[in-house]
């Protein structure tokens, strides 16, 4: 029977009621007394020298409090927006790390680069005044295409005249070359991983509020990780010590990675509020979000797969150019390297893998982590080239994968990871059953009778989640630790307040974390409160990204609970006049083993706060414990997805008729929430595969800069999904045995969709199509293939 509480139960979310009644409290819902409003004048040129910014007229406009430019930032001596990860390239040299000023100084480097900020009594006045700012710029040639960035002769930064941030490699190149020389079959594939805009539905917002009397700053912001913002902004940009700076991220309307990063606007409002002695609020509109939120993906790759005659993989080589955009965003350098190159073994026993990544500066919006971050790019590359290989060798796409599955764990890959556990046959078997793989030919024939082309595409992904062991990422260039912190405060009457560093912005932590604590302490979930998002309330935290909340944040909670129970045992031993070693904690009671003597959790809690009869010589009163959990390894969720499409050859329109997903997330705390995470990931992956494309023109203008041209997946574009979470192989190295589920859907689905479309078009001789598979692209591909076939 399904559980109705605790770990494994599909508990309904406690956070829902406030959202459903319109009582969510998002940053833009908040206003501070005497607040001012900031409007940011952003560059309309992709690359230009900033000759002068005349703010005189704007400063005199109605309601204007002050106008700030890069000159003010320079004079105040503020630091730039820092990068949190330093890559060392293949020659042992550090990556190029040019400064990223809060407001442009001397030059603008992308459309959207902030030039000036008008702070006024209201938004309308700020925006009106911004039009009076006279900006004199001299356009420079825009660097847009990564493939020509090295030779174009125009440098985004003086520090990198060839626009190369780093040239990095991983894996044994010689071994790979040797394997290629001996291969019976080599498949090559050039592909583009399209640039995306994360588009959480809540646009970013920040309010800076300086309290002069206390000399204390508060930043209200739309962030996935308020402590990281406090650390980066306080230490590197504004020189505000932690005890003078509170960062509070209340309800946040989706993040998907783009709200991890520290943004210039956060630093600006915080600093400006102290200059003006008034709160300063900035709210992005959607158009502004398109040119100021960090984008995702944007790789151009050449991949090669070497096989023996039976289809055993011998080696994989990948040569990727990754777009950094105009500045290095917080985690940007790590995405195409340590979160991409390391994933190129996938679920397969490929003995040699070599990957080269050149990160390029361009005059485009910075690119950083977006749902999956590097792992979708790796999975797309690998799962596409495997299907192309299967097509070339006349093998079944599932069969070729099975020939190469890893089946023995732990398994050390040739690209630096050690998979602890997994069962790839299980998820592949399950998805083939769910999708009725065997019945495909009959369905294809039925589609053909209606003039439609049907295709089926498989993708078997693995991801490295639960980011990550601090010592490991430190050796790889991370400038922060990646542990998580939790405090368990047991209140005198036995209710529990949990302070966690994992921010919740849709994931439902307030529900799932309570399930975990409820199970561990044997008390009802309604006795447990989950607190997150406020640096003044929570000891520390590294935040929510990389599917890490439960695996790392949840583990920290478990560790803190363990400490509470350990102390409780000492108290109980005293109360029960028994040896501490005889006390067991089960079902919410401290019991003397082998007797009926017991004290309830709440009784012991009360004793801790009313220590009349208490081992005061031995332990302190109170019952509150903090734990920091640093994972020993990544976790490795994996799964298999099958997508079935129908293509209308006359219009090029692709319809997803079915999408089945079987995932191994290890243990599952709340299956309802896990399925919801997969659904959302699938929609974003399908969005990338079919609809979304942040297209720039050759002048560096973002052509798809609003929902009028950037196609967001709507309900009509998607089917109902067929999602099952496999029994699973629990993670071996965290206390909950969980692996993380937030990114899987976005990682596994793009290649499944594209493989299905290519399968549908294979009779035309099509063996690849780039994302997104829009009607235009599919129709054009069919036309070109038909012309080619006719000529042959």
């Amino acid at each position, binding site marked *: 029977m399904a559980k109705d509480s605790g770990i494994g139960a599909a508990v309904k979310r406690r956070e829902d009621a406030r959202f459903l009644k319109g009582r969510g409290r998002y940053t833009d819902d908040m206003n501070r007394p005497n607040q001012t409003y900031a409007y940011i004048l952003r560059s309309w040129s992709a690359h230009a020298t900033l000759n002068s910014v005349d703010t005189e007229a704007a400063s005199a406009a109605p309601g204007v409090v002050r106008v700030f430019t890069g000159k003010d930032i320079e004079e105040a001596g503020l630091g730039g927006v820092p990068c949190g990860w330093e890559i060392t390239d293949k020659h042992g040299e550090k990556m190029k790390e040019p400064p990223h000023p809060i407001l442009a100084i001397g030059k603008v480097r992308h459309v959207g680069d902030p030039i000036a900020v008008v702070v006024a009594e209201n938004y309308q006045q700020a925006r009106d005044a911004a039009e009076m700012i006279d900006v004199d710029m001299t356009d420079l040639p825009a660097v847009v295409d990564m493939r020509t960035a090295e030779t174009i002769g125009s440098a985004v930064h003086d520090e990198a005249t060839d626009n190369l941030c780093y040239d990095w490699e991983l894996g044994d190149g010689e071994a790979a070359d040797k394997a290629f020389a001996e291969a019976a079959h080599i498949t090559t594939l050039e592909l583009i991983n399209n640039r995306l805009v994360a588009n959480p539905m809540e646009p970013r917002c920040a309010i800076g509020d300086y309290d002069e009397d206390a000399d204390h700053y508060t930043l209200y912001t739309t962030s996935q990780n308020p402590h990281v913002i406090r650390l980066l902004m306080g230490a590197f940009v504004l020189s505000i010590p932690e005890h003078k700076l509170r960062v509070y991220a209340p309800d946040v309307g989706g993040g998907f990675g783009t709200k991890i990063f520290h943004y210039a606007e956060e630093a600006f409002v915080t600093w400006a509020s102290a200059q003006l002695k008034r709160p300063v609020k900035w709210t992005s509109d959607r158009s502004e979000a398109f040119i100021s939120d960090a984008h995702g993906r944007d790789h151009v790759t050449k991949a090669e797969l070497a096989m023996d005659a039976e289809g055993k993989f011998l080696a994989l080589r990948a040569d990727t150019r990754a777009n950094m955009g105009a500045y290095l965003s917080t985690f940007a350098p790590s995405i195409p390297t340590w979160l991409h190159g390391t994933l190129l073994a996938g679920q397969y026993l490929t003995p040699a893998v070599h990957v080269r990544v050149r990160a390029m500066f361009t005059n485009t919006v910075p690119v950083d982590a977006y749902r999956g971050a590097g792992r979708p790019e790796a999975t797309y590359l690998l799962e596409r080239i495997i299907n192309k290989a299967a097509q070339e060798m006349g093998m079944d796409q599932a069969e070729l994968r099975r020939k190469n599955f890893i089946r023995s764990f732990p398994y050390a890959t040739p690209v630096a990871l050690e998979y602890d556990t997994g069962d790839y046959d299980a998820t592949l078997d399950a998805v083939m059953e769910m999708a009725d793989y065997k019945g495909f030919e009959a369905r294809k024939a039925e589609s053909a009778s209606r003039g439609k082309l049907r295709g089926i595409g498989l993708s078997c992904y693995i991801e490295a989640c639960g980011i990550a062991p601090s010592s490991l990422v430190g050796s790889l260039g991370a400038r922060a630790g990646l542990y998580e912190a939790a405090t368990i405060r047991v209140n005198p009457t036995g209710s529990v307040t949990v302070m966690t560093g994992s921010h919740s912005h849709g994931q439902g932590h307030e529900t799932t974390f309570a399930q975990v604590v409820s199970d561990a302490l044997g008390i009802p979930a309604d006795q447990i409160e989950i607190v997150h998002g406020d640096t003044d309330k929570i000891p520390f935290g590294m935040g929510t990204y990389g599917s890490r909340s439960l695996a790392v944040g949840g583990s920290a909670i478990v560790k803190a609970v363990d400490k509470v129970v350990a102390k409780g045992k000492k108290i109980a031993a005293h109360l029960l006049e028994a040896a501490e070693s005889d006390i067991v904690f089960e079902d919410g009671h401290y019991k003397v083993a082998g007797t009926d003597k017991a004290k309830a959790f709440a009784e012991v809690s009360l004793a801790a706060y009313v220590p009349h009869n208490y081992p005061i010589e031995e332990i302190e009163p109170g019952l509150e414990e903090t734990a920091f959990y640093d994972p020993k390894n990544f976790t490795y969720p994996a799964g298999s997805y099958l997508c079935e499409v129908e293509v209308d050859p006359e219009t090029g329109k692709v319809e997803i008729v079915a999408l089945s997903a079987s995932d191994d997330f290890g243990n599952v705390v709340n299956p309802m929430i896990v399925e919801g995470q997969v659904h959302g990931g699938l929609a974003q992956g399908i969005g990338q595969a079919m*609809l979304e494309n942040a*297209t720039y023109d050759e002048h560096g203008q973002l052509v798809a800069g609003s929902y009028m041209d950037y*196609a967001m997946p709507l309900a009509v574009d998607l089917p109902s999904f067929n999602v099952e979470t496999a029994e699973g192989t629990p993670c071996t190295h965290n206390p909950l045995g969980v692996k993380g589920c937030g990114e899987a859907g976005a990682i596994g689905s793009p290649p499944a969709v594209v493989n299905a479309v290519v399968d549908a078009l294979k009779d035309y001789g099509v063996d690849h199509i780039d994302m997104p598979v829009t009607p235009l692209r599919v129709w054009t591909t069919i036309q070109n293939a038909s012309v080619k076939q006719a000529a042959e």
Partner: protein
Amino acid sequence: MYSFDYTKPTDLSAAVDSLGTEGAQAMGGGQTLIPVLKQRLSQPSILVDLSGIESLKGIRRMGDMLVIGAGTTHGAVAGSSDVSGAIAGLTELAGKIGDPQVRNRGTIGGSLANNDPAACYPSAALALGATIETNKREIAADDFFQGLYATALEEGEVITAVKFPIPVASTYQKFEQPASRFSLTSVFLAKMADGSVRVGVTGAGADGVFRHAGLEQALSANFAASAVDGVEVSAEGMSNDLHATPEFRANLVKVMTKRAVEALS
């Protein structure tokens, strides 16, 4: 948005008076205009909201004509049995504009006056040979649309109603632009009482909505999907953007026309 005054007159003469103000701008349902204002792409001195004028609303049958008041919303058209009983293609068209919220506010008059090259209604007006009635005169649809966002309307001239001849049969085949969900290339096809077939195409033309003479001739002679195959639809004059090349649009004109014929066969 820039600052402007706002007025919502309840009768047409007051609206026309207000529109005489320098920099005045008329607004139907505002579903296209308000987003434009939000982007600060337009700076009216006064916005004259026509949605309070009851006389501009309503649908009525007059002999072999269907008359739709300019202020009638897309939702009202889509839900009207008078419309579906007379011009099924218009029901389809109105029900495919935007989304339910846009259909609750957007009006036929606003759509025609704006003449967005990707709007749905202009194709129906052209294909059905509608007459655009204004506070000053009547304008034949063939004369009304004059290029992108350009119409025969003069300063202070307001559309009051649209008179559609009732065809024998009609249909609207929409192919959406993947992001905006406007028409990428859509075809309104009407079989008229005199036996002629008229084909209105929206979303495709670099100069906006148009009729396709070649398709009309071929289908008037032989109302069959196969008749479309023999017609040359040139990519010349088709617009080019992120979502479609001129060649793709030319293809879609044929495909959507064929589907329209099939839908009526």
